[in-house]
């Protein structure tokens, strides 16, 4: 269950080492147990220098991957999880949990409480999930609400103290490092017996509850007979409960209007104390039927102090909010493009913004554009080979808009124009970016009456909703496009 060591490494391509160890922590008591448990197969945790080199090599983050290197590039050297074996000093250090996120490599070595040869299955090693949780926790701490590099370095400098609280001996006590930071501030408060470990102290002040629902809609539209379009809504409900008392009980309900789309694949925060079986079983992997549970979705919980993600869900709405059509025809040296977009009548026609980004990959800079738009305006970014169609706050009454034009390109120069491994040949897409406030596509909402608070004082309850696009692609209907299995019409 314990970790032998933890590292944070910033990935710096182009520098001699390609990275710098920003933070490292070793756990010698765990290392001692590793020596006993692993026996003959024990490989000690290396010093930072050799580890950096081995890890970057294995993650293919060194700049020297121009040539084929069998130990790394062989077809049988397959990694299907973020868990690696690193060659250090001729021996293999395994398992090393590691992943790259925002230019930072998070890594740790979980203790395996048995011999390593033969390797035990990953699923049987408790330290693996603990290691992931620790690394995710560090990542959240570093990046949630972080605005700039200075703040990042301040947070990095706090890590040694925080890990002394959250993981003093290599066994993780709390992955929420913000909680450890807060508990320093609450140290003088007397704690009753039933104070949860994930709650650093007790709130004092005006009671208030805020609930915000953010739905992201993604879509893949192909405009083809033999490939089905796909779309999906992913919701996240974030809460902040400022309530007095050590264990206030709260029940939050999410409701749907009569024609709303059922919520599925619901994952809840661990502070939710019980869960209706209908919530647990409503899942997108089963075939949909009319009997799907459509709420209200009740979540009884004891809230933590900080803002938390009450739940995540997905939903399959009957139609995508914007139906698009995109066609690219190559005519000698220029491309002829046609775009049609149609907002579905059921969708709130009031955007914070709405744009269509039309990139052209693996080509030269744009030298000339001739176009006609029925609505909105077009911006041309010549060097980036990108067109942005700014649609604005509203679709016109007809709900349909179109763009047509021809684009001419100059000679390709590899440094400036974007490379893409998907958009080869005629394969091309446009991507929609939009945001609608005070609206959800599923219709999901939480109102004042849906919140029950069993604590002193009547809290002020505020609720927010918004819909944003995410990965909303419309592919050129005239060329092959990457499909998922689900979109193949069988």
């Amino acid at each position, binding site marked *: 269950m314990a970790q032998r060591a933890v590292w944070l490494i910033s990935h710096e391509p182009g520098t001699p080492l390609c990275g710098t160890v920003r933070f490292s922590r070793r756990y010698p008591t765990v290392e001692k147990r590793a020596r006993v448990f692993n026996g003959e197969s024990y490989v000690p945790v290396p010093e930072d220098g050799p580890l950096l080199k081995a890890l970057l090599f294995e993650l293919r983050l060194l700049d020297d991957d121009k040539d084929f290197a069998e130990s790394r590039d062989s077809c*049988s050297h397959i990694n299907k999880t973020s868990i690696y074996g690193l060659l250090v000093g001729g021996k293999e250090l395994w398992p090393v949990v590691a*992943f790259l996120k925002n230019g930072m490599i998070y890594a740790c070595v979980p203790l395996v409480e048995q011999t390593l040869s033969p390797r035990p299955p990953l699923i049987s090693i408790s330290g693996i999930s603990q290691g992931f949780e620790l690394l995710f926790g560090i990542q959240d701490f570093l990046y949630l609400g972080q605005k700039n590099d200075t703040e990042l370095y301040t947070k990095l400098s706090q890590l040694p103290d925080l890990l002394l609280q959250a993981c003093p001996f290599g066994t993780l006590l709390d992955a929420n490092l913000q909680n450890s930071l807060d508990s320093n501030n609450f*140290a003088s408060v007397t*704690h009753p017996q039933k104070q949860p*470990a994930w709650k650093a102290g007790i709130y004092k002040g005006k009671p208030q509850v805020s609930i915000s629902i953010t739905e992201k809609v993604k879509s893949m539209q192909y405009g083809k007979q033999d490939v089905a379009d796909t779309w999906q809504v992913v919701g996240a409900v974030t809460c902040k409960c400022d309530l007095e008392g050590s264990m206030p009980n709260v029940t939050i309900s999410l409701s749907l209007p009569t024609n709303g789309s059922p919520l599925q694949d619901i994952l809840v925060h661990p502070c939710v104390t019980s869960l209706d079986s209908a919530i647990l079983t409503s899942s997108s992997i089963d075939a949909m039927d009319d009997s799907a549970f459509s709420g209200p979705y009740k979540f009884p919980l004891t809230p933590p102090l900080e803002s938390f993600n009450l739940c995540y869900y997905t939903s399959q709405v009957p139609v995508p909010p914007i139906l698009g059509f995109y066609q690219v025809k190559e005519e000698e040296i220029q491309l002829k493009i046609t775009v049609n977009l149609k907002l579905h009548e059921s969708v709130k026609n009031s955007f914070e913004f709405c744009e269509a980004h039309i990139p052209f990959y693996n080509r030269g800079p744009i030298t000339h554009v001739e176009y006609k738009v029925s609505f909105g305006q077009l911006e041309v970014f010549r060097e980036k080979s990108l067109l942005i169609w700014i649609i604005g706050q509203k679709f016109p009454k007809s709900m349909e808009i179109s763009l047509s034009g021809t684009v001419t390109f100059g000679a390709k120069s590899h440094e400036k124009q974007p490379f893409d491994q*998907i958009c080869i040949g005629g394969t091309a897409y446009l991507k929609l970016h939009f945001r609608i406030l005070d609206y959800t596509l599923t219709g999901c909402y939480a109102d004042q009456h849906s919140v029950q608070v069993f604590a002193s004082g009547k809290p002020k309850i505020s609720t927010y909703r918004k819909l944003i696009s995410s990965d909303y692609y419309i592919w050129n209907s005239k060329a092959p496009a990457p499909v998922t299995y689900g979109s193949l019409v069988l």
Partner: protein
Amino acid sequence: MGPLSRENWAQRVATFRASPSAFMVGPEGEDLGRDLLSDLRSEKQSEQTKVSLLSLSLEYPAQLWPDAPAAEAAATSLLDTLVLLPPRPSALRRPLLLAATTALAAGGALGPTSGASRRLLPLLLGLAAGRDLGRGFGPASEQRPLQATACECLRELESCKPGLLGGCLGLLRGLMGQEGPIQPLSLLLSLALRNTLVIKAKARAGLQGLLVAGNSPTEGSPWNWTLAEEGDAHLQPQAPSWSAAEEGECGLAVLEPSPEEARELRAAVAQLLDTSYLLTPAAQAQLLWLLGWAVRGLRGQPPVLFKPQLVRLLGTAQLTLLHAVLALKAAFGEALFTAQDEALLLRRLTLAAQHPALPLPAHLFYLHCLLSFPENWPLGPTGEEAVPLLLGSQLCRGLLPSLLHDPMALLARLHLLCLLCVEDEEKEEKGQDQSLRCYLEELLAGLRQRAALNGGPRALAILCFQASYLVVRCLAGQPMVLTPLTHGLAQLYRAQPALAPHFVDLLDRVGPELGEPLRVALRQEVVSRPGKDEALRWHLQMLAKVANEDAQSATLSFLQAAAAHCLDWGLQQALLQVCRALLRAGVGGGLADLLQVLARQLEDPDGRDHARLYYILLAHLSGPKLGMALGPSLAAPALASSLVAENQGFAAALMVQEAPAPIRLSIGPRRAEGPVPVLQLQVEVLEPVYSLELRFHVERQLYAPVGAVHVPCLCPGRPTSPLLLPLQPRRPAPARLDVRALYTTPTGLTCHAHLPPLPVNFADLFLPFPQPPEGAKVGFFEELWDSCLPEGTESQLWCPLGPHRLEALVSCHLEPFVVVAQAPTSYCIAIRLPPDSRLLLRLEAAHADGVPVALRTDDWAVLPLVGAYLRGLSAAV
């Protein structure tokens, strides 16, 4: 050493952290541990510095105090420091407790004979129990954090020495009901409980009322080490491996608690589980792993105790919690999870493995968990990844790969897709099977298309070959999959021959199901498309892998055509590699002709020798013997012929090996004499080298080709006379000599190495004019001076050197060329620059701050070189 300043410590700590091993062998290494302990007590150090010193001791006790006595002394010193802290709030108490614990546990000093252990344990237990320790042990505000820390310290000590707290179970249970931090106490109790159960079961003893409160050490009484010594035989895994436990190694079944004890135990476990929601998710997971394995196999302990927790846990997305549920599933199987529960758990895992709200590493781990799922009734062999029975292809739809996935996700999902294809093949559900297989084919085609991109990153190629390998490994028995795969790969080679190393690697790793047809297809690709330049290099590498006795004539005519383009040594070697592969495959007639042609035609003598040797072998050895003689390894006894034994190492001896050179070349002092410039080469070797041949190649053909230099034998440490390398410049210009070495090692291998290029400087080309008779010197120089114009050119330079430095410069660098000298102020210098240029310098009337240099040459092209040379000289003096 006195106390170091804060900056000094910060620097010292930083140096140590950069490389502890290097620091410890350095001059300061020995004192670090001692200085650290003494400065912790120094009043001159700030609390912040002390915290940083303590964190160092938490991470590197083994380096600071390398043996048990040192660790014991360090722990004692840390405890003394702790006791001596003034009773006001301090940030040092927690880290001091942690550091003392770490020093004892990591240093192997923990035990009944250790004085520090006898002090630390009661202190920790007292703190954990919330007892007033008197003597102002910290202010009240620190009481609670210290209580939690003490519990953590005890837990770590119990982990390192199982059974240590066996005697305190009752006390700990009692504390659980009182006011106290719930998480540290729960975790401590569950670990101590589990370890006690395991040790008792091993000793076939009962629990002897250990769980009952009051049956615990009282203050001041000596620590009970009995159980820890029983458990000392070996460390207890906190979560034993699943398979080992399945074999009953956990062995708790032998423990037969009395009904009374069983009730107590159940109550303790239930109490821990009931309050578990107050723990953080990571701690809850630890508790479940521990209790799951504590209760497993124990009579009278039904796993239903865990049931109330499950729904709550299944609803979350926490990796640790779902993993702990899987551990319970593995531990209890059907006793805790009915078939419906199992199906629900599988669904939750399936959706977690693709839920858009979770990060990629979590998706991948869940996918791994799905394929290694501990089923109630597994069908296949354990330990192999498989699709669980209750998870049909319908449920897996969302988990299938697409080109848009990250490489790791794509491979993991591709594996699932392959397993589903296998399953469908077995079930012979034709319709479903086809759609999955078609999808697989399209996906592979997409991967190949990306790998064929010109200038695309290597990662795309790697992914394509990994995917192909994975498919072959899972679906080796399905020709419907392998045939299009073979064609696709051959097409990929046609589009991108530079991927040859990947193809060779793939052929090395796949079985004959794909290997055989792919070899044929690739051979056809190669021989039907003769290439020149870069592609030829890859074709030859590919052909060396795939050539055999089939399609001989096409292969041989390809090679014949290729030979004309094999101009450099590397290509010739690659060509000979193919010949060698053909020899081994038993190709006869046409090959002999080819080898004869090569033996005459190849430019490189080494290549010619090889071709001749192969020809002789082909003419004189029968097929099997030839195969053995040229085989890559003779370890496997295939033919019991004495000839085979004789030929051990023969193949290696025939080949020229590429090797890093054990040879260092440098240019010795200049010899300005003779008709042509001569470089003096100093050779050093790191190991004996025989028959060394050094080959030189002049870049840009500035000089006439330089002949090879032969040295029969060189030994390290034995002085060698310098090698003389005459140069015949075509223009008086500096150049670089590309150097290669061909030599034989003491083991008889012939090696080839590239050495770093040798620079020939401008001054290396200087030669003096024949000395005119004394008295005629001035006239001789003036004659030369005048003869330069009008064809040549003249220039003036200022050399910022006083007379003395000028004298030093001339005597050091230009002595052999001086015609007339009036030291230290005036010199006339005449230099011959082969092939037929001259350079004349007049350094006259040196001032205190410099000397004007007049120069003439009959070759204007050397002017910039002269300028650079003189500036370099004056800067160097």
